[in-house]
């Protein structure tokens, strides 16, 4: 009999605890609830998406996207009143980033992920923090000023990228005739341009800037101010988690509206960055300025 009475009081205590938790859970849901309960948030980062998210010489993830994610982490600490919030860092690749987000391994991804309509069926995105243009890098000495000047020229591009079909479509619609050489990676496509084997290298502008910055004579090259297509980059979040997404939108939106974003942008795109002190030398494009002025999560 005594045993039953004791277990009865335990039951009452457990019920009380459960009600208390339930009361709290009404306020928090999704990622924020998980973070509150575990006292930790897990950030997915890339290892070589320079300068967005990459490892420095101490193997610590740094970059433009990492800085913005840390702003979100600060906001989470304030929101949940958890000053001792633990930040776990999980490296991800372009192949596993979406599955790891869906299965809850990472709570947000800070890298160079294109916000596409297709991906929005599986994950959510924060405000666009970068917009790439698919365009061409040429040598200044070539006198090429526009994509149309590439008529009857040879261009290099990297096989397996979206640039190849874009270039084909451009050729067809504008009646421009170019010959393509396919490099197996960006470095090889750039080498063909550097050796004057091709007149231009067609690729995402920020990738072109990275190749130029690392080349022997960065001053010799120029990126054409035209665009075959634009793609927005943003933080990846879990789908159907309005509470956390609202916090991310609010935080990143405030950084953009306050102009603080300009300083963060300049730090990574206009100044020498670790580990080798290379300067990307990539001023804000009109598309990026537009994304900063009107924070949005529209995909392509």
């Amino acid at each position, binding site marked *: 009999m005594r045993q039953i009475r004791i277990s009865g009081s335990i039951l009452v205590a457990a019920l009380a605890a459960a009600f208390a938790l339930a009361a709290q859970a009404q306020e928090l849901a999704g990622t924020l609830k998980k973070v509150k309960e575990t006292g930790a948030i897990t950030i997915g980062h890339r290892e070589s998406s320079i300068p967005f998210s990459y490892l420095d010489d101490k193997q610590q993830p740094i970059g433009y996207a990492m800085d913005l994610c840390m702003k979100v982490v600060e906001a989470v600490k304030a929101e949940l009143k958890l000053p001792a919030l633990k930040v776990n860092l999980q490296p991800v690749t372009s192949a596993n980033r979406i599955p790891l987000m869906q299965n809850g391994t990472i709570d947000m991804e800070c890298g160079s992920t294109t916000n596409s309509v297709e991906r929005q069926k599986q994950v959510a995105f924060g405000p666009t923090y970068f917009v790439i243009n698919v365009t061409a890098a040429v040598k200044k000495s070539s006198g090429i000023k526009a994509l149309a000047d590439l008529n009857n020229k*040879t261009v290099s591009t990297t*096989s397996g990228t979206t640039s*190849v079909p874009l270039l084909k479509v451009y050729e067809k619609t504008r009646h421009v005739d170019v010959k393509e*050489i*396919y490099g*197996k990676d960006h470095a090889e496509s750039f080498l063909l341009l550097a050796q*004057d*084997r*091709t007149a231009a290298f067609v690729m995402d502008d920020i990738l072109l800037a990275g190749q130029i910055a690392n080349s022997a004579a960065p001053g010799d090259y120029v990126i054409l101010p035209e665009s075959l297509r634009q793609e927005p980059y943003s933080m990846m979040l879990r789908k159907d988690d309005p509470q956390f997404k609202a916090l991310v939108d609010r935080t990143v939106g405030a950084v953009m509206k306050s102009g603080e974003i300009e300083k963060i942008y300049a730090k990574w795109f206009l100044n020498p960055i670790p580990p080798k002190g290379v300067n990307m030398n990539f001023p804000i494009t009109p598309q990026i300025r537009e994304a900063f002025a009107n924070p949005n999560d529209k995909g392509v």
Partner: protein
Amino acid sequence: MFLQDAPEGGVQYWELLVSGLGWTLAVSACAWVIALLLGSAIGTLRTTHRAWVTRVGNAWVELFRNIPLLVQMFLWYFVAPEFVPALKSWVIAADPAHAQFLSAVLCLGLFTSARIAEQVRAGIQSLPQGQRLAGMALGLREPQVYRYVLLPMAFRIIIPPLTSETMNLIKNSSIALTIGLAELTFRAREIGEYTFHFFEAFSAATLIYVAIAMAANRVMALVERRTAVPGYIAHGAK
């Protein structure tokens, strides 16, 4: 899937595979001619009794055999033109496909010539010393000993390894995709990347490679049977 239009416009995917097959066959055939001619010559030189000639032959074989094929492909395509101004200006002016084709043919031809040279040498040295001596005893000069006595027997012996080498050459031609030549493997990858049907694209490429290699094998087996000398050690496959 192979009947869909490719994003390149105006062509269907199966046509991409066929054009890839064309490049694969053209590269393999041209490289094979170079490899057989040079390989035979150098393999033969390595068995003569002139020290410096043997040394040149050995150097050739070691040079082309000891550098990975992938590296050689890069050297021919990216590095060689940098050292020869005339070649560089031709490469810039020419159709990129021609420059890629030439690099691939030279690279594969010379690489395979080293391997064939080694087989020719082995074939000649497998003959009893008495054959050479008998030829000289008949009053034949050295080139004649090779032409009428040693080489006819040596080549019959080495037909089976030559068959393997031919099939290897065809498969090695896929390395040309690294310099952008749009051969069969390049096209299979391209189709995979456009459609995400990697399985189908590479299955098709695999079947085509198997078919070409089998055809080469059958042709060589025919040669082996036709040239067989009754009673001699290397009689043709039945």
